[in-house]
């Protein structure tokens, strides 16, 4: 689908009404990607734009937030609202933005070092809160922007600039971690399979709650162990194995597999848990917090003062 006709509803502020023909070009950002030729991140960029198009999300309705790293440059390459924040902090910023305006489609993009390393604490807590976000991690199992050091997802034994004799540490496995921490939509894609990735991202955006899409996004410059050849040979789609994403035990089992076969697809999904903004009484009526009138009424002011007397 390359063109979508989108009807704009009047909502909140003074919005133009009417119909627009949306094309993939409408999602092109102001800057050109500065990624290396062949970088997996191109696949995520095109998949994200395609997902937004297919879901009829207008550029101003989405807020794409990233941290720091090669992949975190992504907000500059899409035409939506964007925030290019600090290393590891995108999920915190995104939580604040989503709670301040829960009508925005908030999408977080970044890398494995950003999300699973320096941002690890926020990662766990954002999942347990089930904040209504779509988090796409471009997982290349290496630190690229800093020119090739160990990442939290680098496999044991991997030789990098910071582990020249091979890493002795075990990597993080984000899939079981996310399921255990309380994410309500947990998927993995591969940037060599863009159509599949589009579907996973669409599912994540449509899901009400925290959606993780870990995307194998090979670094062609610094990670020669886990390149396209590796993933082409090993990945299989969970959908082809008739996996039931509500089956916790099966989701964990597939999540832990890392050998001759590596699963991609939707591991885990539950819809019985409300997202944080649905649980927050302050958001029950009155629309987005950010647009509400400020100030305290004289009656409320009086009651606050009475408490002190």
């Amino acid at each position, binding site marked *: 689908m390359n063109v979508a006709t989108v009807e*704009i509803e009047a909502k909140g*502020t*003074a*919005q*133009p009404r009417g119909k627009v023909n949306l094309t993939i070009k409408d999602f092109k*950002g*102001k*800057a050109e990607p*500065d990624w290396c030729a062949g970088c997996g991140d191109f696949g995520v960029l095109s998949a994200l734009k395609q997902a937004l198009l297919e879901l009829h999300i*207008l550029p*101003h309705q989405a*807020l794409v937030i990233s941290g*720091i790293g090669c992949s975190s*440059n992504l*907000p*500059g390459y899409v*035409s*939506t*609202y*964007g*925030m*290019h*924040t*600090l290393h*590891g*902090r995108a999920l*915190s*910023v*995104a*939580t*604040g*933005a*989503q*709670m*301040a*305006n829960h*009508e*925005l489609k908030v999408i977080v993009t970044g890398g494995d070092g950003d999300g699973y390393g320096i941002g690890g*604490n*926020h990662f*766990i*807590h954002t999942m347990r809160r089930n904040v209504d976000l779509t988090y796409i991690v471009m997982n290349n199992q290496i630190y690229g922007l800093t020119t090739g050091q160990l990442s939290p997802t680098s496999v044991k034994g991997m030789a990098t600039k910071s582990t020249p004799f091979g890493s002795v540490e075990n990597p993080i496995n984000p899939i079981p971690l996310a399921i255990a921490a309380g994410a309500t939509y947990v998927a993995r894609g591969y940037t060599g399979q863009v159509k599949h990735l589009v579907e996973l991202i669409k599912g994540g955006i449509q899901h009400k709650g925290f959606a993780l899409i870990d995307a194998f996004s090979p670094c062609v410059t610094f990670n020669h162990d886990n390149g396209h050849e590796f993933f082409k040979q090993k990945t299989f789609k969970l959908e082809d194995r008739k996996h039931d994403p509500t089956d916790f035990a099966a989701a964990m089992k597939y999540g832990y597999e890392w050998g001759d076969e590596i699963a991609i697809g939707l591991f885990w999904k539950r819809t019985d848990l409300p997202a944080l903004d649905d649980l*927050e009484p*302050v958001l029950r009526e*009155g629309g*987005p*917090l*950010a*647009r*509400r009138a*400020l*100030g*305290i009424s*004289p009656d*409320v*002011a009086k009651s*606050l*003062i009475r408490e*002190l*007397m």
Partner: protein
Amino acid sequence: MAKLDLSIAIGGAAGQGIATPGDILARIFVRRGLHLNAYNAYQSIVRGGHIFLTLRTSEDPVLSFGDKIDIMIPLNQDTMSRHLGLMKSGSAVLYNGDKIKPSEAATGVQLCPFSVKQLAPNIKGDLVQNTIALAAVLQLIGVEFKMLEDILTLQFKRKGQAVIDENVGVARAGYEYAASHFKPLPFSLPNTGKPLAFFEGNQALAMGGAAAGVRFYCAYPMSPSSGVLHWMARHARQLDIMVRQVEDEIGVINMAIGAAHAGCRAMCATSGGGFALMTEGLGAAAMMEIPLVCINVQRAGPATGVPTKTEQGDLWQVMGAGQGDYPRIIVAPTTIPDCFKTVPQLFNLVDRFQCPGIILSDLLLSEGRSSIDPSELDFAVPIERGAMIGLNGSLPPLNGGYKRYEFTGSGISPRAIPGTPGFAHVVATDDHDEDGVLISDEFTNPHKRQAMHEKRMRKMEGILPMIDPPRLWGDENAGVTLVGWGSTQGVIREAIEKLSREEGIAVNALQIKWIVPLHVREIASTLSRSKKVIIVENNYSGQFARYLRSETGIAADGHIRKYDGEPFMPHHIVNGVKEILAGQTKQYVPVHEIMV
């Protein structure tokens, strides 16, 4: 007739119920229209240890918790042993004689033992001694019993008539026992007929935020800042404020950034350790040009330090917070009521200049309590959000596209909030051009970097004219000037009054509230008229003295510093000024006599 100046102290272990009689006394004072200043010296301990609450009251505003105690209620032997030696002639000590024994007291100190066993033979638990002591105190200062009866009735309403009767009965026994056995103080607690309110500094900060229209508050609990979180959480649903407790302070500042960028007024509070974690985020807010307010309630550092003790030790941390140069406003409120007024003022500034604002409070202000005339608690403050697009109303024309970081003379570029059609843009912590495109994305461009850096920093020039220069207290021609900053205003003012009244030494005082930007010209001009400049601050190295020197070239003639965790008392400053003026020392460090 001389004005009333009454201090009552209650001491004991954590868990002995010191807060309740303290609150009751404070309410009685303010309901009679008396002013109040209270300070609670406590430890980082939930049960045990030593807590010492001092409440001071007068018809006039009370500037500090003072130098003396008129009535002490020791709830345990430890408190009696620690403090009896400091009680002066004319004071009274009320205690449960069944359990607590006094050592030798100074002449003229009235020891007032009562027996809990006799007065409340049927009541279990130790809390009853508090009720008896409180009733006896009220008798000594001439407060009618009805007042306590009403308060106890209200306090125990939920527990039923039997509990009310029991407590009122015990209180009456204590009141009557005091009437027949103890000598009352030589006055009756006046009633001005104009009831006041009272609050602690953290409440004042939170209420100032509410008045300013804070819609998003987040924090990680940290003493002594948690009171702001508690007030916000308690009132969140009433006031439509989103309150979030976050996993760490890095998350706090970044969550506040997200909410502020989306269009909310966002605030957070912490203490020095949490603030250290927030510093990169503050620079990020400044780089992306997102306004927010961050409160640092200082406690004694470094590291975990003394968690329940006060200090003004974070000045350089706050001034140096974050890498690189960036525009920001740093303000240190000077009194508890000033905390309330400062927050809305700062929000208007940060919204207008699109930068972070930092409030430097400390334990003394934030956990201290002060009376306030309710008419001064003005919630109808002006709310000025600056150049914002898409918040409400119509959108400005898009002439050739929107540039988030458009170069302007003031350095202020209108900011569009996410969700506004036609104004989509990227904000970035990487330096960027007018369009928000990263400078490093296009090839690094030193000219663009310089121009954007200058645009951001140019905003600082607009801030100074919008804030008040510091006020000089006391005789303009005194010749000796004390310089303080933030929370020490009350105690310094009291010290200069004391110096004039008791020592015949004329001293004035310049209290600095706005730290960045600093009124360099006004401060230099004031201090140039003084023969001696003495800087008073609650830290070891003279952080403000060094800052003042760096900005004005003025090196102070003397220093009064305190870094034992306890706040200054007026006589500490008086003694320091006398020694410095006598040429005995250039740097005076008082010894805190009270062991708390």
